[in-house]
């Protein structure tokens, strides 16, 4: 039996704080803590002195003053008479809208490009390699500016759609107009609206809420039906047919609701010199959306490729040996393992997209940085408060995204022994 003869016994001496590894870490930490506190105090003191010298009080009351500037893209009610806080909220919503749109398209494009790069088809694999290497080696800012230039320089003006023999025409069965002033898409409208819910500051459309609730309920009921089918299968060995039940449950309630509310699409139409009706997606939004999507998709493609290649061939062969069909092999064996590799870097790409939305400044997209961190700061002269608040909001958004995605990651992660 080995006995512990290492630690010297004896009274505590002051030099042990430096030379005894049991106490040294304590000394280092206390030292680091004091340096940190001293540095923080120095910064706060400097800031206080500087603010006093400039005669600026520190406070966030400027947020409740009238903003006095307009924002082109407003997802919620806003005018130049609204407060700076309201402007910041509009900016945050614009940031989030752009981030969600770009994440979805980048994922779709990236998965396609990543899978196609692994394809046996020589020409498409080469094309995808060229796409990936071109886009990820050039700064995203250039792609955003180039997309913006393509939209404003190469697209026809609305006047080109006029006359008996117009030089430009709408696409997708006359529903979408691509012009140099933006893209006009049909707007979903309802005839018998349920009204809207007015919480102070926010206006929620009851129609959208009703639709979402119905869809969520349908999905829940469908899962119950599938679970019941599995239970019957486990008990009797025969799986009852569920496909028609699923179709009915998933789509019928939503269609009935939409029909009852009188749902229809309002198509954009040329009136005078411009299009009216429908939803206008401004060039700034399109440029940011497409620029961020195609740039990030190149990274996601590499992530997807790496994820699929990380699964050894033996897994596929083992699945075939068990008698699984190729589709089931992909769904039950390859994909769950590939996702484990794919999801963590995918999370950081989503975070990158969210942070890169702050480049909206380059094309005049009114995101959080352009409203709170731009015009508001310029008008009120409160750089310190504005920047701190903006950083805090970005930090919270990033932390929320990474928490949600990590929760998802924990679910797809393989349980290891």
């Amino acid at each position, binding site marked *: 039996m080995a006995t512990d003869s290492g630690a010297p016994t004896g009274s505590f001496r002051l030099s042990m704080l430096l030379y005894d590894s049991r106490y040294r*870490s304590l000394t280092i930490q206390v030292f*680091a803590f004091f340096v940190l506190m001293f540095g923080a105090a120095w910064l706060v003191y400097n800031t206080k002195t500087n603010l006093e*010298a400039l005669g600026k009080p520190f406070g966030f009351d400027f947020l409740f003053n009238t903003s006095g500037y307009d924002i082109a893209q407003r997802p919620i009610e806003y005018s130049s008479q609204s407060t700076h806080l309201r402007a910041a909220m509009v900016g945050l919503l614009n940031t989030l809208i752009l981030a969600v749109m770009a994440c979805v398209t980048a994922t779709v494009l990236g998965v396609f490009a990543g899978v196609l790069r692994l394809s046996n*088809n020589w020409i498409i694999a080469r094309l995808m390699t060229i796409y990936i290497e071109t886009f990820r080696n050039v700064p995203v800012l*250039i792609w955003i500016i180039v997309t913006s230039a393509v939209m404003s320089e190469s697209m026809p003006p609305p006047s080109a759609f006029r006359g008996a023999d117009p030089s430009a025409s709408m696409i997708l069965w006359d529903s979408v107009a691509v012009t140099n002033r933006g893209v006009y898409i049909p707007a979903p409208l309802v005839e018998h609206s349920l009204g809207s819910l007015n919480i102070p500051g926010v206006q929620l459309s009851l129609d959208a809420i009703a639709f979402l609730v119905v869809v969520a309920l349908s999905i829940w009921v469908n899962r119950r039906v599938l679970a019941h089918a599995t239970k019957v299968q486990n008990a009797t060995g025969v799986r009852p047919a569920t496909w028609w039940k699923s179709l009915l449950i998933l789509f019928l309630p939503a269609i009935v609701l939409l029909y009852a509310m009188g749902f229809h699409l309002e198509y954009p139409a040329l009136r005078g010199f411009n299009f009216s009706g429908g939803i206008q997606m401004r060039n700034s939004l399109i440029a940011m959306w497409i620029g961020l999507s195609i740039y990030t998709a190149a990274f996601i493609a590499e992530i997807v490729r790496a994820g699929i290649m990380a699964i050894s061939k033996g897994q596929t062969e083992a699945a075939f040996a068990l008698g699984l069909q190729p589709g089931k092999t992909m769904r039950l064996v390859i994909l769950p393992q590939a996702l484990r590799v794919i999801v963590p870097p995918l999370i950081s790409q989503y975070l990158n997209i969210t942070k890169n939305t702050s480049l909206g400044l380059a094309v005049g997209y009114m995101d959080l940085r352009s409203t709170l961190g731009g015009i508001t700061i310029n008008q009120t002269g409160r750089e310190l408060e504005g920047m701190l608040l903006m950083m805090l909001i970005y*930090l919270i958004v990033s932390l929320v995204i990474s928490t949600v995605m990590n929760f998802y990651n924990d679910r797809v992660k393989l349980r290891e022994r």
Partner: protein
Amino acid sequence: MSDQATSFVRNDMLPPKEPPSSQVGVVKWARENLFGGWLSTVLTLLSIAAIVYIVWHLFPWFANGVWNADSLTQCREILNGATGACWAVIRVNWLQLVFGFYPPELYWRPILAFVLLFVAIAPVLFPSVPRKLLWFSGLYPFLAVWLLWGGTVWAPVLTLAGFVLGYLVLMAAGSLGTVIATGLTIAVPVLFWLFALGPLDDFLQGVIPLEIEPVASRDFGGFMISVVIGVAGIALSLPLGILFALGRQSTMPIIKWISVVFIEFIRGVPLITLLFTASLLLNYFLPPGTNFDLILRVIIMVTLFATAYMAEVIRGGLAALPKGQYEAADALGLDYWKAQRLIIMPQALKISIPGIVNTFIGLFKDTTLVVFIGILDPIGRASAIRATSDWQGIYWELFLFIGAVFWIFCFSMSRYSMHLERRLKTDHR
């Protein structure tokens, strides 16, 4: 029996038949690689259609390019209605795009610094280069700063002298014990830089005036500024990143939490907010009257930003090392720093090479964001060129040029990292 007719027996081999024409050469290759199944066929046809479409539309634009003109109007006159690129904008403005407002008679200085950069990084990149060149790599930062910003030679020499002083102190105080020696090694040079550097600089400048013409930071621009910020950020973020990665793995709670908060804060906010902090807020945080160079502030912010990402990449490498490596280092009796230097880091860094180089590439691309705080990097220069009456309305040629230069830098970095991975591969799979 003997007159029984013998059946035919072939006594020579038949020559092998040619394989069917669908199983050889181009046809076989095309069947396997282009038309193997309906999906593949559709993809091939779509790809060919896309390539033809793109070449059909872009080829005339490239082929008709005009190189000799003084303005866009002149370009259009020469083209006479045909579609074509106006490369003249690059030919006329490329010096501005590369150097910004750097005085033209001093262009040799950034060029020399750029060439010497390759001499300095050669021993780091390629093992076949003589090791003695590493001395030059150590001297290079001081030389480059002097060449780019100019001014008296004594400031960089004295800064370097501070490091030499620190080294001498470390040698001399080695017998006093690790902690005192480390403290002195840090304290003496810092005191030297804070109090002795200014007077000594003035004194030496008075005695031996060695000076080249100083260039102000606001004259820097174009690709030069991207390379300066990028290289400085790359060189500084790797060691700092290693420190923060170790800090995050540390068993000391306070050190660990400082590292975690730093890394998560920097990774949670966009780089552009940090750059605005550098340009707008730093004046609040520093004592009244302090004013330091905008480029230096930007380098600090870009470095901090890259450091956080670098720390995470290296932490991944550390986590991938088997625990046995740490235990083996302990069993050999190595102390913490020796174990890190000799056992842990060489392996962890090797694992994280792809991530490290990706962070470098990301940092270099992110240098374009400095355009938002008024530094005239290539994109800023391009906007300025487009704002002149001669070149108003020109887009693609400038962006194509800038994009191509960035592409060459970033692509060669990623190729080098693949080469490095292959070279350092020690497993025999």
